């Protein structure tokens, strides 16, 4: 058993973090949400670094690592509030051409979710549709949609979808569930990063902001909130890493399976569901704590804490949320008694 990063993984996370800090400053990230603000140059740079190629086999132009490494990078992308269709791109990296190198931008829609809202549709080339009978692709121009003037998350443009063509099926009904589980794990990795960063910015503010003649971080009313944020993140991180290891063990190279669920796959699905529940809670709760600790400043557009909460909210609906994951765990529990 080894659930800690090795030197290569530390270096990988470090490189991803440096890229985010240099290329995706708060100003840049906010710019992505403006009309026409999606910066394809920066997106291509992110792709050029192999972000979506890490887990692809070398024979297919990938780096030949596993989903564990992808998850570690996604944690950093979440921390850096990097905008763009990260999960969609990773999920179709080996399936649709042009995505890995950023030539084509894809977005993802869950059909049957009632109101259909697609992120980044205005810049997308392809739309990936998750349906009960598999995953489908349509050209973005074939989708009838209204761009929204005001997305909740100011870093991402969204469109309300009015009509979706059927399109072509790219993933069959049997592979749909593991595919979506992988997506949910990637969302959890982003949420982990969001929760982690929210704790860090709030801690930095609590050290610097003074009231009653001392740093507000000295008051237990404040420091206990931050300690809770930290502890939630620690547990969530362990769960996300464990789920990534289980996913890599059950499907080497990230291949999708059409077989009946093996015990390894069942364990991987359970681990991914637990990771999602914990990471989603950490992201939302820690972002709320960050706003609360910033006081009135946290309620302003100018400061960043609201960006963490809004990203956390936006991620909640992707590839099923924590509620779906909790029900999946309940199903697993009932099967084992």
């Amino acid at each position: 058993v080894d659930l800690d990063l090795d030197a290569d993984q530390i270096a990988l996370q470090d490189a991803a973090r440096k890229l985010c800090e240099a290329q995706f400053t708060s100003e840049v990230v906010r710019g992505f949400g403006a009309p026409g603000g999606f910066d394809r140059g920066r997106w291509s740079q992110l792709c050029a670094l192999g972000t979506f190629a890490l887990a692809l086999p070398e024979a297919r132009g990938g780096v030949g690592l596993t989903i564990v490494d992808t998850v570690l990078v996604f944690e950093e992308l979440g921390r850096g509030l990097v905008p763009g269709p990260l999960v969609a791109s990773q999920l179709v990296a080996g399936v649709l051409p042009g995505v890995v190198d950023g030539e084509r931008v894809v977005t993802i829609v869950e059909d049957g979710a009632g109101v259909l809202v697609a992120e980044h549709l205005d810049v997308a080339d392809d739309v990936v549709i998750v349906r009960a009978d598999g995953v489908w692709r349509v050209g973005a121009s074939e989708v009838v949609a209204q761009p929204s003037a005001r997305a909740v998350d100011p870093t991402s443009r969204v469109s309300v979808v009015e009509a979706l063509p059927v399109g072509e099926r790219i993933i069959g009904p049997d592979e749909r569930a593991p595919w979506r589980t992988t997506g949910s794990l990637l969302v959890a990795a982003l949420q982990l990063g969001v929760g982690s960063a929210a704790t860090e910015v709030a801690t930095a503010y609590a050290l610097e902001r003074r009231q009653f003649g001392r740093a507000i971080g000295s008051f237990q009313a404040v420091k206990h909130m931050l300690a809770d944020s930290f502890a939630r993140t620690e547990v969530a991180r362990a769960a996300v890493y464990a789920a990534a290891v289980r996913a890599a063990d059950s499907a080497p190279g990230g291949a999708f399976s059409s077989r009946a669920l093996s015990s390894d796959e069942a364990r991987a699905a359970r681990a991914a569901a637990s990771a999602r529940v914990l990471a989603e809670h950490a992201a939302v709760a820690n972002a709320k704590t960050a706003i609360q600790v910033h006081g009135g400043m946290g309620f302003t557009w100018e400061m960043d804490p609201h960006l963490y909460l809004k990203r956390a909210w936006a991620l909640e609906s992707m590839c099923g949320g924590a509620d779906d994951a909790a029900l999946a765990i309940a199903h697993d529990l009932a099967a084992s008694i």
Partner: protein
Amino acid sequence: MQLAYTEDERRFRDELRAWLPGALAQMPPVRPEHDLVARRAYDVGWQRLMFEAGYAGIHWPREHGGRDATPSEHLVFLEELSAAGAPQEGANYVGLLHAGPTLIAEGSPAQQAEHLPAILRGDEVWCQGFSEPGAGSDLASLATRAVREGDEYIVTGQKIWTSHAVEADFCELLVRTDTEAPKHKGITWLILPMRSPGVEVRPLRTIEGTDEFAELFLDEVRIPVDNRVGAENDGWRVAMVTFSFERGTSFVSQLLESMRDVRDLVAACHALPARGATVWDDPGVRREAGAIAAEFDGLWALTQRNVTRATRGVVTPAGGSSFKLQYAEACHRLGDLSLRVLGNAGLVVDEIESLANGRLVRSAMHAFGVSIAAGTSQIQRNIIAERVLGLPKEA
């Protein structure tokens, strides 16, 4: 990163699986609860069986009778014992996990020779005399006084939360030997033989209705200076040394029990009717049960992370305090759901058929044991905030 076990660890697991059923068959079916003498006999009986098979104190160094087990092997050991339904340490807890390791690190060769083999064999039961009515979270303010008189200390004071004091042979006792020095600098660590004149033990019933706890009254008890561990006034450091033995495994048995509670609760939900179906048909209940199971899954993963680091010699408050804080929260959450789900069955502690209602209700009460004992959740939050996040102390 990998979750697979090594060849050696798998072999160790197989060895335990081969041994456990036969050993457990030699134990009485139920651990006595209220008859303290019988309970001690049960606990040390199990310890003796482990000793004879070479599994006593496996995490202790080989030169002191242990097996030098790595934290990872210790994890396997606790996992297999729990899976087989083996007894927990019970009365042997302080000896095996606290007093023993302290004597290994700080005791004289004579003290080690007298006590370590006896602890491993189950011949000696120890209790802990640290907390006092006026010294809980602020342990260093303890006031039990020890005055040197020739070759003896004369000790007077009161200790509390002394688990297994009634059955214990020895007590690891923290006393104040210097009232003038700063509070951490005037404390001494003594071995108190529990049969000494002037020692009075009064059982203290817990909210669970059991008599595990006791108060300890010390009235001019004479303790030989030879029973001092470490130097006079250096007892705080000696007591803290034990924490360096913490290797991420302290709560493993309890965590596995909590996971069993979740399974019991799910089974109870299937058996209990509600609104024309069963409680399990309520998606709100299923979601909450799933979310609680997620917490325990995450805590298991954090245990594996902490054990990984401990194997490499890294033990941080980030891992330990985060675990304890979140584990306590999850236990309370499980307790809340249990009582909600059990309904009328939650009014009795006696087990009703196969509902496990008694076990679940007692776990709901025991959640406070987790959030209060060994550093309250409030103290864990201070530790994380100050030692990990670097926030200043409250003025």
